[in-house]
């Protein structure tokens, strides 16, 4: 039983982490493509249209990967989490089914038109199809996060005698206080990924002295979008998300921040330190007094509950993991703002394209937004443990009763092998597109 649950969780964690590598780029990138295409309509400069077309090709590849890795996600609710699906399907089934009906149809129908229809449609209609693809992908994110928010902070439900959760207020699913901060934070984070990718490819072109015209356009666009979205990720959205956690999942917050003891006279913010769960303290810490209290409650002396105030039975299952995930996300967020700020200043002074070290930094930053997004999700998910539905349904009660661990391990290994192959093929093909560059598309 125990190891069955373990493989179920590993499989979910592995497949969702892999899946989310793709949507996080497509959601943000679709907005940037719409921006390029819109600029082309406005200025009639060919280079914007070429830029849009170039990113469309990268988008298409990512989209295909998102689709093929997303379908297993939806199936896994039934295959691996049957008990959870049976009990809560009447509620989370709503938002997941809406995602399929409202957003996936929209996206997939118009993506075909967007990719192959430029000649048939003309530029204006082509712009509109691009916009609809953008709309579909953001709607999809919204409905997924609505589902997820319900698991973090259940609303509008009733529990029947047989243990089933039933919906009694549809509107509550969408006015959930967890939803909006989480959604905006996530979308801003997705835009961070897209901006950094655009900027990194641009920097690559400039440094390589190939396609430098486009290199400059990409770096500029990436830096502008990147600065705005990096700031939004931290404030107001990240801040709002954190306030939700303090208020509704205080024990999670204590673990995220690594606070073992409640401190009198205000809590310090931990910059570095390794949680030592056995001795209930932080090793090697570097901290700044009172900042955390201020950030959380806007009062220097406000009290923040430490882990010592809670029953160990409701501790998050993996405290160090949660703590590191959160600190990596926030740390990277700070670095992103710093780098983008410097780059923007240089851009403003018209020196950016000559400042080699910034271009190199932009290039090497490429993987980090992906890491920040992934650790962000780990913060949310590990923070929710040991619950599937916060405070109401334990994770141990959600798995499929009849699927044995041998079978789950078999499919987990299968997914690992298959996704490894997919990942390699993907990198190879993206490399090829980038190497060819934007101009080739001109027939």
């Amino acid at each position: 039983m125990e190891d069955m649950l373990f493989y179920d969780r590993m499989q979910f964690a592995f497949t969702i982490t892999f899946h989310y590598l793709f949507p996080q780029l497509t959601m943000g990138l679709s907005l940037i493509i719409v921006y390029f295409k819109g600029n082309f309509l406005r200025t009639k400069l060919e280079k914007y249209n070429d830029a849009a077309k170039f990113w469309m090709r990268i988008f298409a590849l990512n989209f295909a990967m998102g689709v093929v890795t997303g379908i297993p996600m939806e199936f896994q609710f039934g295959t691996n989490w049957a008990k959870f699906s049976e009990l809560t399907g009447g509620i989370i089934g709503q938002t997941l089914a809406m995602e399929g009906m409202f957003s996936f149809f929209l996206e997939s129908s118009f993506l075909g038109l967007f990719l192959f229809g430029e000649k048939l449609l003309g530029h204006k209609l082509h712009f509109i199809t691009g916009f609809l693809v953008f709309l579909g992908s953001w709607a999809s994110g919204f409905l997924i996060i609505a589902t997820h928010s319900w698991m973090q902070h259940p609303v509008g439900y009733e529990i029947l005698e047989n243990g089933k959760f039933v919906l009694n207020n549809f509107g509550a699913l969408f006015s959930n206080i967890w939803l909006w901060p989480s959604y905006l934070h996530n979308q801003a984070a997705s835009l961070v990924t897209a901006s950094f990718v655009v900027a990194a490819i641009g920097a690559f072109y400039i440094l390589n002295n190939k396609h430098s015209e486009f290199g400059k356009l990409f770096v500029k666009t990436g830096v502008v979008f990147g600065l705005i979205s990096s700031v939004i990720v931290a404030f107001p959205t990240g801040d709002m998300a954190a306030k939700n956690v303090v208020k509704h999942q205080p024990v999670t917050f204590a673990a995220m921040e690594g606070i073992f003891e409640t401190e009198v006279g205000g809590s310090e913010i931990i910059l570095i330190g390794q949680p030592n769960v056995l001795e209930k303290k932080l090793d090697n810490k570097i901290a700044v007094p009172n900042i955390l209290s201020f950030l959380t409650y806007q009062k220097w002396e406000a009290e923040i509950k430490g882990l010592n105030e809670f029953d160990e039975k409701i501790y998050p299952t993996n405290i160090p993991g949660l703590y590191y995930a959160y600190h990596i996300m926030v740390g990277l967020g700070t670095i992103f703002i710093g780098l983008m700020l410097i780059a923007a200043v240089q851009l403003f002074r018209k020196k950016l394209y000559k400042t080699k070290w910034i271009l190199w930094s932009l290039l090497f930053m490429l993987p980090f937004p992906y890491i920040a997004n992934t650790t962000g999700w780990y913060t949310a998910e590990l923070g929710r443990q040991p619950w599937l539905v916060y405070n109401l349904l334990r994770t141990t009660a959600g798995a499929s009763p009849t699927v044995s661990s041998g079978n789950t391990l078999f499919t987990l290994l299968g997914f690992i092998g298959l996704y490894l192959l997919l990942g390699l093929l993907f990198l190879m093909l993206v490399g090829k597109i980038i190497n060819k560059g934007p101009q080739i598309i001109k027939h």
Partner: protein
Amino acid sequence: MLAVYVILDGYDFGAGIIHLFFAKTEKDKKAITNAIGPFWDANEVWLIAAGGVLFFAFPTLYASSFSGFYLPLIMILWLLIFRAIGLELRGQIHNRMWESVWDKAFGLASLLLALFFGIALGNVVRGVNLGMVANGVSTQEAHYFFLPLWNPTFSPQTEHLGIIDWFTLLLGIIGVVALSIHGANWIIFKTNSDLNAKLKKVIFNLNFVLLALVIISLLVWHIIEPKPFHNFIKSPLLWIFPLITFTGLFGLFKVKSFKKDGLGFLFSSLFLFGGLTSTVASIFPKVLPSSNTVNPSLTLYNVAAEEYGLSVGVYWFAIAIVLVAIYMVIQYKVFKGKMDDVGYGEH
């Protein structure tokens, strides 16, 4: 919704099978991928959406069947991935080995998918050991079960059923043949390829096979379900569904003389639609029959979600379906007619 999925994605699978066996030249292959390229993704969404709607409207059925059919479902997922990358990646690099690897991946995945979907239908008709009854006692909650891929006897009537037995395999083969015909019809409809004349012959011949298989399956049906016509006798209006099936089937024998290329596709769609609805009509209101006498079958009534949830669902679903219909009209309008020159996969 599942019927729509089968008709739409069915032609993609069929085209894949045709691709595997009959497409010899590069031109033929291009024609086939062009004919389905812009559509397969949207078609596949029908599966996702059908899954989602099943989840919210019938959570118990979703939980029970998805965990019970664990292995074949995961394998279907893998096959769907192979089919998609086969189709999408082949045109990305021009190299003979690269292309032939992905051609085979695409074709074989399509073939196996058609087979699996037929087998799945067979399992639903035959029923499963709900509650995993052994020696007269349930070892699980009444609506849970788990099926291995097969048992050594391959018989649909033992206590320990497997996914694959001779009955479900028969339906699997029907699936392959029917979808091959369907796919061939789509290719004829959407392209001017040199294949078209040859495909008409293929359809004509396959149709005899299909007819024979359908007759055999009807003959063995009563071994599985003693009273298959029960519902039809009770409400004779239901005969319309088998009627549709046979209209489709017999219509296809005339495929060589059709003036309009779309007609064949229409008939094969009728066959698929009729076949599925007749099956559903025959087991109604059961949705997953129980093969033991201890636990009752899952029916439409004992697996549905609660009333309030369903009633809001109806509203948004109605809006969504209208939107989907609009998207489809636009999509098929833009890509209307023959598609030999779309240049799919060369972007």
